[in-house]
């Protein structure tokens, strides 16, 4: 039986495991805001119950270095993954319920959902999904896993924009942050994370790229394009960025 604390750890691991950085106790403790010894303690319990693998498998291994215990990689076992997606599903369904039906704002919806996710029974969860019309995303735009823990859309390979071919489509994953000026300029043009982008033309010999975003085409030099990372979508298209649907307009 999982305690509320354990569930919180699983949820955090679920989130962090979807990021690019190696997942280790140090990162987990930073994310949760608790001390490394506490994290290690809990990890041992989760490991004992078969929810996580810790210390040797997963990312970050085989680099030929001896890592301290706190640097060793953590990963979720299939059992842990199932438990985590179920939690995430309850959390995101609750958020939808709290914003759509009760009219809470996003921030408080998130806070309340953190509490609700631990107490919802499977029946309530099922009814909730039914009443809400089986929503695909939470109010923040993240996908809601289905009953079997399957997530509709998971991004695959991440690569820089300049590696895309002509007529290839992708979605911007992130823009490198070393040059805040460039970042902000690109942001003002709408070159932002989670925006769909299509390469229309690639000039040969390392020339610039012609890309299309929405209704606009831009020429981007190769070195600019190398700082924009894209992810390719697999499966169904997410229902658009999170702002569609409700125009917050007065």
């Amino acid at each position, binding site marked *: 039986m999982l305690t509320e604390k354990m569930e919180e750890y699983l949820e955090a691991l679920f989130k962090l495991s979807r990021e690019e950085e190696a997942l280790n106790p140090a990162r987990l403790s930073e994310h949760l805001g608790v001390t490394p010894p506490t994290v290690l303690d809990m990890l041992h319990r989760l490991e004992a119950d078969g929810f996580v693998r810790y210390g040797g498998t997963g990312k970050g291994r085989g680099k030929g270095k001896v890592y301290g215990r706190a640097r060793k990689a953590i990963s979720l076992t299939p059992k842990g993954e199932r438990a985590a997606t179920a939690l995430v599903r309850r959390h995101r369904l609750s958020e939808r319920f709290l914003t759509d039906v009760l009219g809470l*704002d996003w*921030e408080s919806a998130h806070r309340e959902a953190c509490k609700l996710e631990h107490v919802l029974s499977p029946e309530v969860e099922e009814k909730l999904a039914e009443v809400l019309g089986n929503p695909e995303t939470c109010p923040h735009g993240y996908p809601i896993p289905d009953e079997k823990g399957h997530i509709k859309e998971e991004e695959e390979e991440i690569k820089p924009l300049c590696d895309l071919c002509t007529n290839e489509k992708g979605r911007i994953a992130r823009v490198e942050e070393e040059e805040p000026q*460039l970042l902000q300029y690109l942001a003002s043009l709408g070159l932002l*994370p989670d925006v769909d982008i299509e390469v229309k033309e690639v000039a040969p010999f390392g020339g610039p790229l012609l890309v299309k975003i*929405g209704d606009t085409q*831009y020429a*981007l*030099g190769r070195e600019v394009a190398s700082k924009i990372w894209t992810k390719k979508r697999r499966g169904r298209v997410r229902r658009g960025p999170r702002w569609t649907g409700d*125009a917050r307009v007065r």
Partner: protein
Amino acid sequence: MKQERLEQLEKIRRKAEYVFALAGNPNVGKSTIFNRITGMGVMTANYPGMTVELNLALTELDGRKIGIVDLPGTYALGAVSEDQMVARRGVLQGKPDLVIVILDANNLARNLYLLLQFLDLGCPVIADLNLVDEAEKAGIHTDVRLLSEILGVPVVPTVGVRGDGLGELMHQALKMAEGKEEYHILPFSYAMDIESRIRRLARQIQRSLSEPLYETLYNPSPRALAILLLEEDREFVDALREIPEGKGLLELSGRIAAEIEKEHGGKAALIIARERHGIAGSIAANVQERRAHDRPHLGERLWEYTTSFKTGIPILLVVMGLVLLALFWGGGALADLFSRFWDGYVGGPLGRGIEAAFGVNTFSQSLKWAVDGLGAVLQIALPYLLIFYIILAFLEDSGYLNSVAFLTDRFMHRLGLHGRAVIPLISAVGCNVPAVMGTRVLSTRRERIIACVLIVLVPCSARIAVIMGGVARYVGVGPALLLLGMIFVVVIAAGLLLNKIMPGESAGLVMEMFPFRRPSLVTVLKKTWQRLKDFLYIAAPLIVVGSFILGLLYESGWIFKMTTPLKPFTEWWLGVPAVAGLALIFAFLRKELALALLLVLAAQAIPGVTESSSLLEFMSRGQIFTFALVCAVYIPCVATLGVIWRELGARDSLAIAASTVVLALLLGGAAHLVLIII
């Protein structure tokens, strides 16, 4: 933050009852609309240290004087580029009664971003939905009334090129300015969690900043300032750092920004930008309907050919060839026409008049040199420039130049520039002066310096005339081509070298591309005139004064006193006669005169040579080659130096001049050495 006030802006403000600012993204037809609603009297104003200009004009509407401030076309109002900062200052500091935001109906979502920023800043706004004809053709229909309702500001649909709707727009604008109190501009509210944080910061700002402090910050509303701080806007953050109350505010805004970052997993500035794009996108989606786009029209297909590499490069070569042909033929014909007019009606009579008034002496003869200088401006520079500028404005307004920049970006990158610099470089073949002014399209100083160096090395029409008249005529066509080839290599080598040795990196290309548009003749002509005016006001006076000085030196005989100190350079190093050295030095004042000057000086200094002699009578073919080479490479002329001085300042312009002189001497010396060996 220094409060730099623009004199011209204040003058307009004093004269006009209301001041409207025109704002919009680049390429939305803003300059066309500006030119349509104003007359010829356009003033330009520069913020110190900035190259982006503000255009100002006075116009009359319903018997009221209205000042129009044309802000530079920008995508946003941040502090990330000069044009954005100039646009923002124009609004915050110029305090127009109304901002007319021009929106492209084809791309409403992206265009609304700027409008939302104006609302964030608390500016009274009216929207002009431009290019509605093109949008309808592309199957995009906009519900103007709904858009106006959602935005809470009047929206007027227009077709700027034809002038449709502009009367209505100005009318609405005037009505709005007159009844300013009736309109309340409401900013949009962001997502709840971000909005509540903005308000928290705004409250703190209101509490801790007093009125006079506001003044120094251009007086934005607390909410506007809060957003700017969360966006980590350089200008405002720096300004706050300098005042005691600022520290606490910056600390708070840093904390709040960190909160947002933690919650949304991105920098607060980006999250806010994304929110704004989101709001803009959903408004556009609400008010626009799209039919399936039929066939792409001719302009679109043609445009695709120009950006595709296989077809684009041949098209580019053909266009460049046509431009050069138009320059040589059209320019030549115009030059003939102008020079007949000048000799018959102005130059001749003026010269006789001067002699009649002052008699024949050193002074009057020098004055005649000055008159000749003015004639040269009219006969040699102006015809080519006129043609070139008209073509340039057409290419620019149709959107073809963007395709060119796209195609040439890779190559230009090697030279430390990017695609946008190709235009000034080509235009340098006509005259270096406007080419140097054209470097303003480049965004960094590094690029502008590199571009100026390369431009100076590109032979202009005057230097091509020297090469043709000297080398091709007396030495042969082969050597003339060899010389041009050498100069071409020098230009490329200089670019490669500068790219290596200059600190920094060339900025990446980020440029909007849009299909061809029909240029407006009015705008083309006005642009041409604006550019010609720059040339006439800056270059022409320098050439006239230079000619006068040259005349004085020559007529008084002083010029020959320089022969002795020059000897080691000319005879020993370059291996050319001393008079040739003189001609080289004074060609700085009038480069197209280098050959004529050489003959005139030789006739005085060398017995048996007359002004109609052949160059071969006192110079060998090798010497002529060396002479033309040096003449072509060193700093082109006083006018070019003057304009580089204005663009880059004293230090860099003198450095460029000096380095070209050194380069010319090195090349000349090398040529001399090679010639001795053969």
